[in-house]
Structures are given as C-alpha cells and as structure tokens.
C-alpha cells in the first residue's frame, strides 16, 4: 500500500499536537516509539548505560519542551536524534574538564580481517563496548564523524576544539578501535580453537 508523505505528516500531526498540549499518554507513546533507537544513539556517546539513560532522559525532556518548534519539514525521528546528539555533546562539554587525556602510544597494531568474520565472531554488543571504552573526546569525534556525518570544521565548532585536534582525535580513535577489534578477534579465535 502506497502512503504519500502528506498522509504521513497528517498522521503524525495529531499525536504530536497532543504531546505539545501536554497529554501524558501521547507523550509516553512517542517515548515508547523512539526510545529504543535513541537509547542506542545515547549508548554510543556515553561510557556506560547509566550515563546513556541520563542523556536519554535529558534529551526526551528537551524533545517534549521544544516539540512546538518542530515544523514537519523532515522526519520526526531525525529531529529527535539531533536533539539526542546535541544533548550528548552538551553533557560532554559540561564534564570535559574531568576527562583525562589518554596516551595511545605503545598500543599494539593489529591487522584486520574481513568485516563479516569480525561481526560473526564479536557481535554488536562487543563493538558497542569498544566505542564506549574510547576516551570521551575520541568517542565524541568518532561518533560525530562516522555516524552523524559531520565535517571536522563542524565537529571542532561543536566541541570547542581546533580542526586539527578533531582530525587527530578521529585518527587516534580509529587506531584504538582497530587494536581493540584485533585483540577481541584473537581472543575469539583462541576460544574457538579451545572449544
């Protein structure tokens, strides 16, 4: 069945208006609809589940408070996701003074195998843990560049760093992840051989 974009907008307008009016049932429905996807986004930007839940909570509060400014120009999901990302960035910037700088020198370089093999061996959860274990600044730059598609100039502006710092942080983040994947693969291979 073909549904055009106008119908979709009309379908979403009513519950959104209810959310704007403060109808708690509609708000809970909206939360239930988008929370799993948004929580995954928040998980990538945070070091653990608790921090991700804090970002999700702040993000959704912002969503409900500023839902009246949604113009139906794009998708609601994209709009909510943007709010979540900027909430995570704001959260990072608020805590940025507490973050320690990690020296990645001396880490072992690992040759990568085929992506399908890695996924088969590691799984999504382990990959997410690798991102979460990145230093906060690297994690932010990696997420903004890889998942949000921002340019280094934009990342630098968002995080309040220079463009060069953004580039080097991205490079370092990739290096860390590559080594982490390599190490995990080794362990997985050993386990499979032992098993």
């Amino acid at each position, binding site marked *: 069945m073909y549904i055009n974009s106008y119908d979709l907008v009309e379908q979403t307008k009513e519950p959104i208006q209810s959310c704007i009016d403060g109808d708690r049932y509609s708000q809970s429905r909206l939360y239930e609809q988008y929370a799993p996807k948004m929580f995954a986004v928040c998980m990538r930007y945070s070091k653990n589940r608790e921090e991700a*839940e804090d970002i999700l909570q702040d993000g959704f509060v912002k969503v*409900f408070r500023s839902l009246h400014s949604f113009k139906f120009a794009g998708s609601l999901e994209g709009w909510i996701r943007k709010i979540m990302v900027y909430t995570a960035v704001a959260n990072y910037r608020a805590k940025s003074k507490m973050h320690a700088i990690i020296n990645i020198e001396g880490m072992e370089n690992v040759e990568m195998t085929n992506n399908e093999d890695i996924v088969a061996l590691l799984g999504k959860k382990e*990959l997410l843990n690798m*991102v979460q274990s990145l230093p906060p600044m690297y994690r932010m730059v*990696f997420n903004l560049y*890889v998942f949000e598609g921002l340019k280094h100039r934009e990342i630098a502006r968002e995080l309040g760093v220079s463009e060069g710092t953004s580039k080097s942080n991205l490079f370092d983040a990739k290096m860390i992840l590559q080594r982490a994947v390599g190490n995990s693969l080794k362990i997985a291979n050993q386990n499979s051989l032992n098993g």
Partner: protein
Amino acid sequence: MDKNLHDIENLFRKELEDNEETPSSDTWNRIDKILDRDKIISIDKKYASLKKIVFLLMFFLIGLSIYVWNIRQNNGPKKKDSTALNNEAKTKDNENNLPDGFNKIDLKKPVDTLSKKDDKNQNSIADILPANTDENILKPLNKKPEKTISSDTTENISIFPISKSRKKSEKTIPGVTNHNIKSSIAKQGKNGKK
C-alpha cells in the same frame, strides 16, 4: 593501514547505525516527574503573567481615573461659563422667537422710556392671549385710570370706593357704643328732671 582504518569506520557504521537498545522503565518515570514539574511551573508562570496583567490594568485604571479627575477639576469653571453662555444663547433665541406684536425690552433703558411702548404691548397682549384667560390678570394692564390725580384738584376724590360700614366706623369713637350713648342721655334727662 589506512585501508584497515577505513574498514573499521565502515564496520562500526554498518553494525551500530540502526542498533536498538531498550532503556530501563525508570527512565520514563523520571521524565514523567520532570514533565509534571514543568506543568506546575508553567501553571505558576501562567498565573504570574495573569497577576502582572491585573496589576498593570489596575495601575492603568487608577492613572486614568486620576487623569480624568484632574481634567474635571481644571475644566469645572469653564464648564460653568459654557452653561451660562448656553443660557444666554437660549434667552436670545427666545427673544428672537417672540410672537408677532411683542417687542424686545431693553432692561438697561430707563423705565419712563419704556412706558409708552408698553402701552402698545398691553394692547397687543390682550389681542394675542386666548379668550379663556383669567380677566383679573389682564385688568391692571387693560384698565385705564378714569381720573388722574393732580395737585390742582380741590375735590376730595377717593381713589378706591369706601363702604358704608367703613364710614360708620370712622364716626364711632372707640369704646363708645350706641347703647352707652342712649343710656347716658337717659341718665342726663333723669338728672335734669330732678
């Protein structure tokens, strides 16, 4: 090395892009509480704005009433003047609208000069007034004196008719009645006989 890094980028993008995770139910409860607090704050804000509006309205009304009162105070005598002027205008209008035969009376002129003109007016009033009007009202105006009093006349002419009873009373002495006179005459006769 670069190829490996690019692969890492693609690997993570592909695997984690559309990932979904279920948050704990506690998260919604916390959001719910925050939204409740927001609602209370928004109600307070609503009332605060209402209070502001009421205060401003009161201030405006008080200011307006003071302003109006001041204007009335300042314009009071002027208004009186205007009412006096209106009255004057009305009287002028009335004078202008006098019926035919009526002349305007100039109050500033001496009375002697008016008398001749008034005679004319008197005649005209009698003509104009309706027939059933009380004649007594017109009498002093229409009645002409039959005789004029002059210093040359030697005759005693009474202006107003004196009644017979009044003439009698003029002759009587206060305290003496006819009965007393008769009794005193009788007494004198008796004494004379003796």
